[in-house]
């Protein structure tokens, strides 16, 4: 029983497409409808609604939301305003975290992937072990490490003491140690994810390229830089982009491990925006902040994209 296409065949077919295809607008939109409904309600509409909110002083608990024009945005760039100091401090926190975490989140998984790519027994088991923290979820990780890194009660400091290293390190209390904790925990949590993807990328590199390099007399290091890395380029590009975005959007680790302390030094941009909008009830200001953050991320993404492009050209 062949199902016939639902849309009438529209004769004004100007598009390409194989013979007999023609335009199938009706069918297409039927296929797209479920997604488009969700997309319009929960992606497009909020994107516009958010801009609308950012143009008002929007306290959800009050009945009136007076229009305030670009005030919320101007405040973000006016030193001395209510939000200026806190917002840029939180952006700095996100910036520091991203800059510190991304290299580790790329290099360590790469090294592990290279190791796993060797002829070893049990590589699948190792792969599983390294990936396991990711399935636990950010809150489990946060709770576990908050305890392990507790300056008094955590085992990390006690191990350091046993070894003879300085051991009263305020892992969750003060910077720069708090950054070490945040980056370290993030690596522990998600390195498996990147490792696994990079490993697949490694396996996709043609073995003959290595043989050719060996014939040319290249050693392990040379092979790594002239065969492995270039071969990984597209996968690495993907992993880098995903990792940068994930770090720039960090929330759980700060919230659970340091709660933004000391002062507000480790309060990430997302933490601050969420707090302002949903706890302090200043939704207009928070919406404006989210768009400024978006602008930053857009610039970084474009730069990242351009850099990748140049490398491949």
């Amino acid at each position, binding site marked *: 029983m062949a199902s016939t296409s639902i849309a009438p065949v529209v004769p004004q077919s100007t598009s390409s497409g194989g013979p007999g295809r023609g335009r199938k607008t009706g069918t297409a939109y039927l296929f797209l409808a479920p997604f488009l409904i969700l997309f319009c309600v929960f992606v497009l509409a909020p994107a516009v609604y*958010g801009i609308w909110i950012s143009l008002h002083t929007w306290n959800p608990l009050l009945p009136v939301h007076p229009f305030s024009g670009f005030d919320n945005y101007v405040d973000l760039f006016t030193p001395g305003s209510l939000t200026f100091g806190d917002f840029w401090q939180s952006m700095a926190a996100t910036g520091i975290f991203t800059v510190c975490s991304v290299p580790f989140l790329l290099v360590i998984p790469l090294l592990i992937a290279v190791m796993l790519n060797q002829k070893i027994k049990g590589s699948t088991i190792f792969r599983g072990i390294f990936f396991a923290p990711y399935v636990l979820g950010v809150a489990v990780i946060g709770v576990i490490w908050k305890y392990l890194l507790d300056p008094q009660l955590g085992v990390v400091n*006690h191990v350091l003491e046993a070894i003879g290293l300085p051991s009263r390190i305020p892992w969750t209390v003060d910077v720069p140690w708090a950054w070490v904790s945040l980056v370290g925990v993030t690596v522990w949590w998600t390195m498996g994810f990147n490792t696994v993807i990079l490993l697949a990328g490694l396996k996709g590199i043609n073995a003959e390229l290595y043989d050719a390099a060996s014939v040319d007399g290249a050693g392990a290091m040379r092979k790594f830089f002239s065969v492995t890395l270039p071969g990984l380029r597209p996968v690495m590009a993907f992993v880098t982009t995903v990792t940068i975005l994930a770090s720039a959007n960090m929330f*759980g680790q700060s919230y659970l491990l340091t709660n933004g302390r000391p002062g507000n030094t480790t309060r990430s941009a997302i933490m601050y925006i969420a707090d302002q909008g949903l706890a302090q009830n200043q939704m207009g200001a928070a919406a404006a902040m989210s768009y400024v953050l978006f602008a930053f991320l857009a610039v970084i993404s474009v730069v990242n994209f351009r850099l990748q492009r140049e490398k491949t050209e």
Partner: protein
Amino acid sequence: MTVNAESTVARNTALPSEAPLDEPRGGRRRKQGGKARIWLYVALILTGLVIIVPLIWIFLTSFKTDYNAINQPANPIPNPFTFDAYQTLLSSGQQPIFRWFFNSLAAATLQTVIILVTASMGAYALARLEFAGKKIVFGAIISTLLVPPVIFLIPNYLIVQNLGWLDSIWAITIPGAAGAFGIFFLRQFFVGLPGEIEEAARIDGAGDIRIFLQIVLPLSRPAIATLAVLSFLTNWNDFLWPIYVLLSPENLTLQPGLSVLQGAYSTHFGIVMAGAVIASVPVLILFTLAQRQIVDSVASSGLKG
């Protein structure tokens, strides 16, 4: 960016092919290879221990009394060994961990199903059909790919509130299913599928629905599996959003629930760790059983480019 999808898929489901950096050949090489091999294993085992030891430590801590946890933090062995923490946690009813686990399971499953259905249908249209406004629709979808989720946080909160979905499973599954990643991911994959089989089917008179269900989907199993795993894990890990939209203790999912648990029992480490253990063990068991498929699926997500 133009990776041949099928061969990649084929390569991926095959047994892992080794691409060693250093192929031992000959006596002297072999000896060096052997030494390197040992270091390799050492490194991997150490890394594995870095993962496993903290988990074991937490497991043991959950059997300690508060006093023991505070006074003998360096000693992993609980003294006395007690189930008190578990008892308090499971009997108080205020932090229903198992309920949270099932809430997470239900939400992640529901959102994954919604994503798979909507994204695959939409991706088919984008990849295989010509229609008015195609460029606009595709452009709109792509343009949202890199938008940070925080943009949607506040407006979606208000939308969800107005829909009356606060504190319900809809709040944590529907908005999240609207993202562009799934449809984009599958569209890229579908585009890479060879068109000959479809052409043949069309010539035979098959309509789009038939082609979609009986040809495209079966060919796309690996990609769909990947999307399923990624979507499931993303929802499982969701933390910021549920914190604000879920209110009653029994409606929480595992992630915000654990955060609440820690807040409620901050210095009762035995109880907090017991909660972490209960939250981890079922997940780890499930993961271990399906480990290979899960990791393989995630692995291939990077190969679409």
